[in-house]
């Protein structure tokens, strides 16, 4: 028979204590310092978990429920239809156009934002007079209400009264209104997609620049100076010192940007509503027009859920790389 454990020792679940004077009592595990730390930690974490569960988990599960049902906007009693809505999306030729456009829109915009954001961050990290004011001004596109700024762009891209075309025409770069060389920004398929991407880039690249700037200012100047002394060129310093050092910030910024861009409905909806002939159709506009305006909630939800397998691996890879770098 095993002897009694020593006073104060504990096993998982409960500990047996032998008190002075021969009184023996059982102390609950949750009163131990380990358990208290455990409970305290999870209590601090609980609001965040609750927030994610309620505002992300529940809507996600609800959209999954909708996608597997024949729910419509006016019928609360939906029938389980399995994967029919996903099959319907895959049978829809417009879906493939929207999928292709979503990928081009997201990755094209990401590349442009990366280039412009990096250039801007390098400019803003340099000391010059009025730097604080300039830094504040460049975030204006990001802070403007999206409806207002996109309507401004809609006018600038207007087929007849475009200020861009007016300027180009006065500079002699294009012909008069009505001539062959007069660009119709939102009417020519390639230009239309480029225009919506451009507005997304215009709106978001200050965010990329600010993220980069935050990272760059955290790199100790001594390290850069030492690299300079060692003869490292500008690109070598950027590629081999700055980028590795600010990689965690870059990864988080990239993750945010990918999610926001891929699920961005407003810019396309307000500028072209997916037209002409699907040239700017993306998954969010197709899902909205099918699910809400067309009333077929189930099919709309299924289309929007196609974003999930696109985003999940991208985010998983980013977070995995980030974790590896941390340890």
């Amino acid at each position, binding site marked *: 028979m095993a002897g009694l454990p020593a006073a104060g020792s504990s096993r998982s679940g409960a500990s047996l204590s032998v008190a002075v004077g021969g009184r023996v009592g059982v102390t609950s595990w949750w009163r131990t310092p380990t358990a208290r730390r455990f409970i305290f930690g999870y209590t601090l974490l609980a609001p965040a978990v609750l927030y994610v569960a309620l505002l992300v988990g529940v809507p996600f599960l609800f959209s999954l429920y909708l996608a597997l049902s024949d729910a419509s*906007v006016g019928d609360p009693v939906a029938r389980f239809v399995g994967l029919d809505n996903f099959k319907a999306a895959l*049978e829809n030729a*417009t879906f493939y156009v929207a999928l292709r456009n979503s990928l081009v829109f997201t990755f094209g915009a990401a590349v442009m934002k990366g280039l412009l954001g990096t250039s801007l961050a390098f400019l803003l990290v340099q000391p010059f007079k009025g730097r604080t004011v300039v830094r504040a001004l460049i975030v204006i596109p990001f802070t403007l209400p999206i409806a207002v700024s996109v309507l401004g762009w809609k006018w600038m891209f207007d087929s*007849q009264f475009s200020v861009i075309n007016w300027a180009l025409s006065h500079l002699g770069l294009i012909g008069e209104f009505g001539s062959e060389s007069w660009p119709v920004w939102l*009417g020519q398929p390639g230009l239309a997609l480029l225009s919506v991407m451009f507005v997304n880039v215009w709106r978001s690249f200050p965010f990329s620049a600010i993220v980069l700037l935050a990272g760059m200012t955290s790199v100790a100047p001594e390290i850069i100076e030492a690299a300079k002394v060692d003869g490292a060129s500008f690109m070598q310093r950027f590629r081999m010192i700055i980028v590795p050092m600010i990689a965690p910030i870059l990864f988080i910024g990239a993750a945010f940007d990918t999610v926001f861009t891929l699920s961005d409905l407003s810019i396309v909806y307000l500028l072209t509503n997916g037209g*002409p002939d699907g040239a700017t159709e993306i998954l969010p506009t197709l899902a909205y027009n*099918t699910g*809400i305006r067309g*009333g077929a909630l189930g*099919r709309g939800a299924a289309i929007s859920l196609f974003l999930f397998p696109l985003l999940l691996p991208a985010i998983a890879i980013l977070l995995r790389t980030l974790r590896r770098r941390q340890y």
Partner: protein
Amino acid sequence: MSDPHQVQSDHHSVDRRKFLKLTGTGVVGASLLTMLDARQAPAQLKGTSLRLLMWSHFVPAYDVWLDDFAKKWGETNGVKVRIDHMPHLELPARYAAEFAAGAGHDLIYFVGQILTGHYYKNLIDLSDLANGLGKKYGGWMESSKSGAQVGGTWYGVPDFFIAIPMLWRKDLFDSAGLGAPDTWEDFRKAGRILKAKGHPTGMPFSHCNDANHNWRSLMYCYGAKETDPSGQTILIDSKETREALKFAKAMYDEGMTPEVFSWDDASDNRYLASGVACWVHDAISAYRTTQDTNPKVFEHTYVLPEAKGPVARLNMGEPNVWAIWKFAKNVPAAKEFIQAIADHQKEAMEASRGYNMPFLRNQYTRPMPGLGGDPKLAALQEQDKITVFFGNPGPMTPAAQEVLTTFIIPDMFTKVARGVPVEDTVKWATGEIRRIYAKHKAS
């Protein structure tokens, strides 16, 4: 406990100016009350409140009139009325949210996107009201019924529709030796001749409401049908559709510029008002915009209710329908309000400057407000005879609604205008429409 200071009386003298002001206000108020008292709402409405969800009308003056009418109607009947205006494209999302929450406005309004078929199980049966209005005003336009009825029961009450006529420049037509146009061929010819003189035409090949209206009108004039009258059989794959597509392609090539691929609902208004367009196919808001912004062009702008096609002269209108949620807190007041608006259709049409076309036959008695007094608009006083709605000749079902909101018809015309063969395009559109109707049939 009473406050002794409350019962103080003023003994100011009434001077002449104040007397005139008071009596003037009294006369105006009394006139309005007489107007609104024509039908007195039931006494049990007193002390209740009514919430309406409306669109932001394309003619802002109409919203001013409506808000004022609602205020005075509320004062007369002891109902506190509140109207919320929203852009029409945002209304479907709002209805979905209200339906999911089971709470919201008492009286709602479907604009262009008719959701009666989706929500009818959750809408009040308004058959008594709609039948009463039909009886009082000479009956409803036949084509309007499917926007408000499901299975013969009225779950909505049609309010007005928007006519989309041809607006053409007489001075430009005259300068080219062209007579007054009457057919689609006439308009095609005008586009061909006048484009060369710097005055092209335009119909939107894009994802906007006008594109949905315009190309359907052309299709229907060519005899093309979306479905059979029951809405069960899809008839888009036809010789008539192909003819309409070929005609549209020719009309684009000869008379339009690529900017039509980028147009929104206001672009054709601007095109006409700018003096560039030789003709556009648009609601009379374009005519009114031109009247307000470019009187010189307006002077030469004329209106044709619709161009005649090889088979018919049919105009696709945009319908607007009232509905009341089952969860509405004040159904009696909502019904009374619909009745009051219908009884004041002439004032409403006047306020909209002839934009709000009635669905009730007897409201076409001449002269119609906003139209009868303008020789150029007078022809629209028979618009009820040529107006049909989306899905034609089938009903405005949820499936037809989805075909509308996913822009399949405008995309079909866009593809052909861009050079995709007609056969491939018809095959694509038929497939898309069949898929949508099959899904709705299955559910």
